């Protein structure tokens, strides 16, 4: 990429080497991200990628942060999601509040945190404690969780959790939490909408990693797999499609790292990700349906990323951005 410098390329190689050396993707999906992996991620400065150096973070620029998200996502999207939750969701939730004091422990991996980005409505009661159940929390083993219940609230653990089997981002624990916990309102307004809108490029970087990982698997397989006496790479329809997808991958990388327009980039990423992950599974035939080949995880995580982060609300934001006005719809 012409807009990436030598330092960026070194960082990319560093993340790749880290993944190959330290991470076992199948084991992590089965046993979840543990303290050991957290510590490893922290020791290299990945966990606190965007956190200020005064809190022990790496204080990286956007390009470096996106390289980290892309490369981890390409290897195992769960790791990228973990880093994203800390740097794109938790950090802006607590910034300029007294809870910045948590950031040193967060960036060093000593404190596991979460942000609820899935729920729009809560049925919680607030007194000295907050009471009620919150469904669909990713990273349920967190020590504190940020909720956006019309305001921005930090709830202190430990939490009574009920884990659920979840097909997406399997390296993170997922489920519901039953609250009877201490809480503090850190902003009387909900920071969610702004945080989510500001994270478009970060999510696009995760999407790019999924796309890149899926295409890599499919292209590599097409080079070694023979069917009807010829390599898959010798079949026009398949290779035309893979080449088209590879072009999309590189267009996405180009617009992301040139910081073209976060709305266009996010829209392009979300409209490409599922189709590409799905076709990469198809390329593997029956083998693609089994986790051993490591491609079906991209399809699972792709649909979750799109389903959770992209819908009518995001399309409205895109349209408002393009029309330069807040549109009203019938």
């Amino acid at each position: 990429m012409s807009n990436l410098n030598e330092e960026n390329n070194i960082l990319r190689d560093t993340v790749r080497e880290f993944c190959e050396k330290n991470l076992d993707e199948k084991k992590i999906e089965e046993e979840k991200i543990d303290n050991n992996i957290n510590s490893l991620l922290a020791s290299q400065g990945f966990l606190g990628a965007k956190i200020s150096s005064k809190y022990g973070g790496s204080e990286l620029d956007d390009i470096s942060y996106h390289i980290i998200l892309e490369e981890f996502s390409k290897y195992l999207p769960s790791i990228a999601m973990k880093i994203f939750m800390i740097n794109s969701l938790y950090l802006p939730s607590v910034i300029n509040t007294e809870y910045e004091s948590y950031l040193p422990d967060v960036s060093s991996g000593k404190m596991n945190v979460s942000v609820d980005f899935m729920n729009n409505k809560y049925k919680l009661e607030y007194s000295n404690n907050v009471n009620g159940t919150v469904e669909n929390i990713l990273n349920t083993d967190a020590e504190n969780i940020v909720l956006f219940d019309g305001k921005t609230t930090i709830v202190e653990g430990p939490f009574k959790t009920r884990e659920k089997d979840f097909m997406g981002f399997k390296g993170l624990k997922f489920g519901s939490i039953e609250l009877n916990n201490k809480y503090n309102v850190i902003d009387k307004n909900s920071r969610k909408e702004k945080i989510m809108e500001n994270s478009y490029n970060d999510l696009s970087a995760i999407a790019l990693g999924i796309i890149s990982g899926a295409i890599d698997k499919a292209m590599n397989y097409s080079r070694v797999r023979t069917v009807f006496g010829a390599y898959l790479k010798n079949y026009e329809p398949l290779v035309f499609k893979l080449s088209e997808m590879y072009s999309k991958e590189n267009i996405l990388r180009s617009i992301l790292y040139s910081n073209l327009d976060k709305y266009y980039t996010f829209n392009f990423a979300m409209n490409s990700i599922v189709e590409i992950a799905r076709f990469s599974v198809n390329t593997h035939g029956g083998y693609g349906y089994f986790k051993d080949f490591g491609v079906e995880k991209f399809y699972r995580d792709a649909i979750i990323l799109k389903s959770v982060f992209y819908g009518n609300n995001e399309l409205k934001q895109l349209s408002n951005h393009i029309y330069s006005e807040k549109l009203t719809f019938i």
Partner: protein
Amino acid sequence: MFEEYDDYRKQIREFGLKEFTDEVAAKYDRGEEYPDYLRKKSLSVGIIDMHNPAKILISIEELCRVDAGLGISVTTPYFGAEVLMLFGNDKQKEFLNDVYSGKYVLGLGVTEASGGSDVAHIKTTATKKGDKYILNGSKMFITNGAIADYLVVLARTSDEDKPHHGLSTFLLSTKLNGFKANKLTGKLGVRATNTAELTFNNIELNSEDLIGEEGKGFYYIMAFFNISRIYVAAQALGIAEGAFDKIQDYIKANEIKDENTMFEIADVATRIEAAKELTYNAASYLFKFEPRPQLTSMAKAYAGETAVYASEKAMEILGTNSLEENVERIFRNAKIMEIWEGTSEVEKLVISRFILKGE
């Protein structure tokens, strides 16, 4: 089409809704366990009628609409039966009664690791030795492989210039020495179904285990695919309808009325209707013993892609509500519809070849 079976369809749906609860479906999906008790129960209430193909199609569609993992599990213990029905000897046809009664589970061993859809190039051999055949080789992704009592197996009995010549089908007891099944786990979906890798090590088969004529195996299997692909289209149709059920329930419960979502459900409904017409049309020719392979492949490919499309739309429209197991399971189940019994790409080859042949 098939309106005369409306009552039967209703009966099947009631059975599915009663037995395939979310808890049961989740349990067998998570555990990757075959629900044998449901196979037996489905037989006891007579929901499978192997003597009436229209009823088979309807039961597959309606059960997969409720849950494809369980639906396929209870409708595939007979997998491969049509090969025996069409080409088997009297004893083999008689044996089918024990399959239909539930005494035995059947499976079909065609696919090999070296080439999923490439049937003509299989490497498993059945070498004639006196009045015996000695079976050696392996099979991959075999449905019912580790639970079947018998398997219809395709093997090479002679080397010919054309690879699809020299193949033969056999009825194999899985109790024979030299048979080994390794259950495969870690599937994305349809995890209640049993899938295995098989190895055959010097298995002695008798000449009466041969199905039909020696060297005709390829044609028998292609004839079987003309039937089984209709049933896979029915599986896919059921999955698509099940996904659409979830979409409608969600939209109604949450009183969603925005136009974008309305357009999306219109697209899903249209595709399902088209898949249904194609599937039922292809089935109607088959059931008159006038199969149209290109129509069958169109139905299988289009219904498979519709299942995937509808399940992805269910995930997207439901958003965070799609994370419930009973929705994401539909998504995971759907993907196999574009893969097994001939990938969509293979179906497209069949379609174009038949069209250009003018058939």
